[in-house]
C-alpha cells in the first residue's frame, strides 16, 4: 500500500474531499509540496472542503506539516477546512504540528550598497581599535613582566622552555634550509649580473650587507609570524572558545601572566637565535654558490667578507630581532584572545594574526632603516 503519495479530489455531495493516499514522508517532500501548493488554490471556493487522511500509509513531520499547511490556507478562505479520518497513531503528530506558529523568516543581512559602505566604514574605524588593542596588550605584557621581575618565583619557566622548544628548536631545520637557499639565490643572481662589469667579487659585499642587515632577520621574522604567530593565535583562540581562559581567570590566575608572557618570552629569545642561524646559513649558501658557480675561492670569499662588513652590520640586524618578535607575539596574542565562539572566527583571527604580523614586521623594519640611517650605522 505504501507508494507514491497522491492527493485526489472527490466530490461528496456539496462538499469536496481531498483524499491523501500513499507515503507522506520526507523522501517524497518535493512531490508533496507541489501537490499541496496546487491544492491550496482551492481556497475561496464556496464548497465545504475536508482533507481525508484515512488512506495515508505513512506520515512524518514533513507530511503532517504539509497537511496542516493545506488546512490553514483552505481555512483562511470562506470555508472551514477539516481533517478527517485521522488514525490514533498519527493524531498526536498532527496535534504537535498544529501548535507551530508559521512565521516568515527573513534572511538576515541582505547585501546592499549601503551595507557594503557601512562595512568599509566599520573596517576603517576598526583600524584605530586594532592599534588600541595592540597597545593595551603591550601594556598588559609589560605589567606582567614587571610583576615577574618583582616576584621571580611566579615566572613560568617550564612553560617558557616548552614554547622555546616549539618556536625555536623545532623551527631550526626549516629556517636554516630556507635561508640557505635564499643565500644561494642572492649569490647566483649577484654573480650573474655583476660579471658583466667584471665586478664578481663585489657579490660578497652585497651578500654580507644584505644578509646581515636585512634579509636574515626580515625573512626569519616573516617565517616565524607564519609558523609560530599562527600557532599562538590558534592555541589561545581555541582555549578562549572552550572557556579555558575564563576558567583560569576564576581560579585567580592572570591569563596574560600564565599564557601570554611565556609565549612572548619564548618568541623574544627565539627570534635572535633563529635570525643568527639564518644569517649564517645564508652566508654559507652564498659562499658555496660563489665558489662553485662564480669561481670565488673560499679563502678569497672570507677575506673579502672581513673587509666588506663590520660588527655594525651584524648589530643592526640582530637588534631588530627581539623587537620584531615582540610585535609578532603581541599581534598573535591579541588576535587569539579576540576569537569568538565559532570555528569561522578562529580561522579569521588566525589569518589576521599572520597578515598583521607580517605587515607590522615590515613597518618596523622600515622604521629601523630610517633610524639607523640617521645615526649613521
Amino acid at each position: 500500500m505504501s507508494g507514491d503519495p497522491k492527493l485526489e479530489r472527490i466530490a461528496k455531495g456539496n462538499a469536496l474531499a481531498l483524499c491523501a493516499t500513499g507515503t507522506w514522508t520526507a523522501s517524497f517532500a518535493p512531490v508533496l509540496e507541489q501537490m499541496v501548493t496546487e491544492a491550496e488554490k482551492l481556497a475561496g471556493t464556496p464548497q465545504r472542503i475536508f482533507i481525508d487522511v484515512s488512506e495515508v500509509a505513512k506520515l512524518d513531520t514533513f507530511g503532517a506539516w504539509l497537511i496542516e499547511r493545506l488546512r490553514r490556507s483552505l481555512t483562511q478562505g470562506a470555508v472551514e477546512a477539516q481533517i478527517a479520518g485521522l488514525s490514533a497513531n498519527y493524531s498526536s503528530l498532527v496535534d504537535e504540528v498544529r501548535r507551530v506558529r508559521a512565521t516568515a523568516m527573513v534572511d538576515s543581512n541582505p547585501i546592499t550598497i549601503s551595507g557594503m559602505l557601512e562595512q568599509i566604514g566599520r573596517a576603517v574605524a576598526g583600524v584605530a581599535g586594532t592599534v588600541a588593542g595592540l597597545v593595551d596588550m603591550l601594556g598588559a605584557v609589560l605589567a606582567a613582566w614587571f610583576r615577574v621581575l618583582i616576584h621571580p618565583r611566579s615566572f613560568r619557566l617550564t612553560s617558557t622552555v616548552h614554547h622555546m622548544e616549539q618556536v625555536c628548536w623545532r623551527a631550526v631545520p626549516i629556517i636554516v634550509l630556507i635561508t640557505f637557499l635564499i643565500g644561494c639565490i642572492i649569490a647566483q643572481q649577484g654573480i650573474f649580473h655583476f660579471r658583466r662589469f667584471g665586478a664578481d667579487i663585489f657579490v660578497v659585499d652585497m651578500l654580507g650587507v644584505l644578509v646581515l642587515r636585512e634579509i636574515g632577520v626580515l625573512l626569519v621574522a616573516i617565517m616565524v609570524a607564519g609558523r609560530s604567530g599562527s600557532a599562538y593565535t590558534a592555541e589561545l583562540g581555541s582555549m578562549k572558545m572552550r572557556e579555558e581562559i575564563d576558567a583560569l581567570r576564576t581560579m585567580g590566575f592572570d591569563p596574560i601572566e600564565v599564557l601570554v608572557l611565556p609565549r612572548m618570552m619564548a618568541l623574544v629569545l627565539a627570534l635572535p637565535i633563529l635570525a643568527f642561524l639564518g644569517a649564517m646559513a645564508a652566508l654559507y649558501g652564498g659562499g658555496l654558490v660563489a665558489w662553485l658557480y662564480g669561481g670565488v675561492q673560499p679563502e678569497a670569499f672570507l677575506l673579502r667578507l672581513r673587509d666588506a662588513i663590520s660588527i655594525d652590520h651584524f648589530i643592526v640586524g640582530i637588534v631588530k630581532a627581539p623587537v620584531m618578535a615582540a610585535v609578532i607575539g603581541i599581534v598573535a596574542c591579541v588576535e587569539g584572545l579576540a576569537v569568538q565562539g565559532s570555528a569561522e572566527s578562529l580561522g579569521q583571527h588566525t589569518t589576521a594574526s599572520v597578515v598583521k604580523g607580517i605587515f607590522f614586521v615590515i613597518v618596523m623594519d622600515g622604521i629601523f632603516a630610517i633610524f639607523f640611517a640617521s645615526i649613521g650605522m
Partner: protein
Amino acid sequence: MARETQSEIQDPIIRVRGITVQFGATRVLDGLNLDVKRGEILGFVGPSGAGKSVLTRTIIGLVPKVAGSIEVFGVDLDSSSASQRRNVERRWGVLFQQGALFSSLTVRQNIQFPMREYLRVSQRLMDEITMAKLTMVGLKPEVAERFPSELSGGMIKRVALARALSLDPDLVFLDEPTSGLDPIGAGDFDELVRTLQRTLGLTVFMVTHDLDSLYTACDRIAVLGNGKIIAAGSIADMQASQHPWLRQYFHGKRARAVMG
C-alpha cells in the same frame, strides 16, 4: 493503513554481534552482543569509562572495530555499498554529548543542513519544518537566528536534537542527552523524547547516567560492564538482578530517592 507485520516489529533495528574494540593494549569492548528492537527506547547504562560512548560511536561508524558485525535496518554496515550506507545514515540521527552544532551556522541553518543536502524542497518548506522542529523540542522561534555560541547548554541539547530529527529519522542515538541539564529541564527532555518516540514512531538508543530517565523514559535497559552487556531487560529485571554493580546502582541512595 499499512501496518508493519509482526515479524518486522520483532526484527531488531540494530543487531550487534561479537563486537571487539581495542585502543592500543586496552580492550574496551569484548565480544559484545546487543539487539535494539523497533520502536523501543533503550537506555544504556554502565560505570564511567566502561565504553558506552565507544559502543555508540562504533555502531555509527566513528570508531573502528577489531572484530564483530553490526547490522542497522537489516544492512550489514561492513559489507554494504556506499549508497546503502548513505541510505542508512539518512535514516538515523545522532545527538552528540556536547551537541556538536556547527558553530559558524545559525540554529536555523544547522537544522536545515541535512535537509538542504538530502532533499530538494523549497526554502519556505524548510523554514516551516524548522519551525515545527523547534516547536517540537520546546524552543521559541526567535532562537532560529542565533548562533550556537549564544545558546545555553540546555538549548544546545534541544537544537542538537532538532537537528538529529531534521530528516525524520527512524532511529536516534542520544549520548547523555540530559547531562548538564537542571532536573526540571532533564525531566522535560525525557518527556520530550517519549512524546517524539510516540508521535514519530522513533527507535531511541540512549546512553544515560540519569536514573530519572531510566525510570520515566526507557522501555528497556542494557547494562555495560567489562566490555560486555551484563544485563538487559526492564527496570524491574534490573532491580531484581543480583549483580553487585546493578545492586549498587539501582538500590543506592539516589535510586531510592528517585523511586520515592
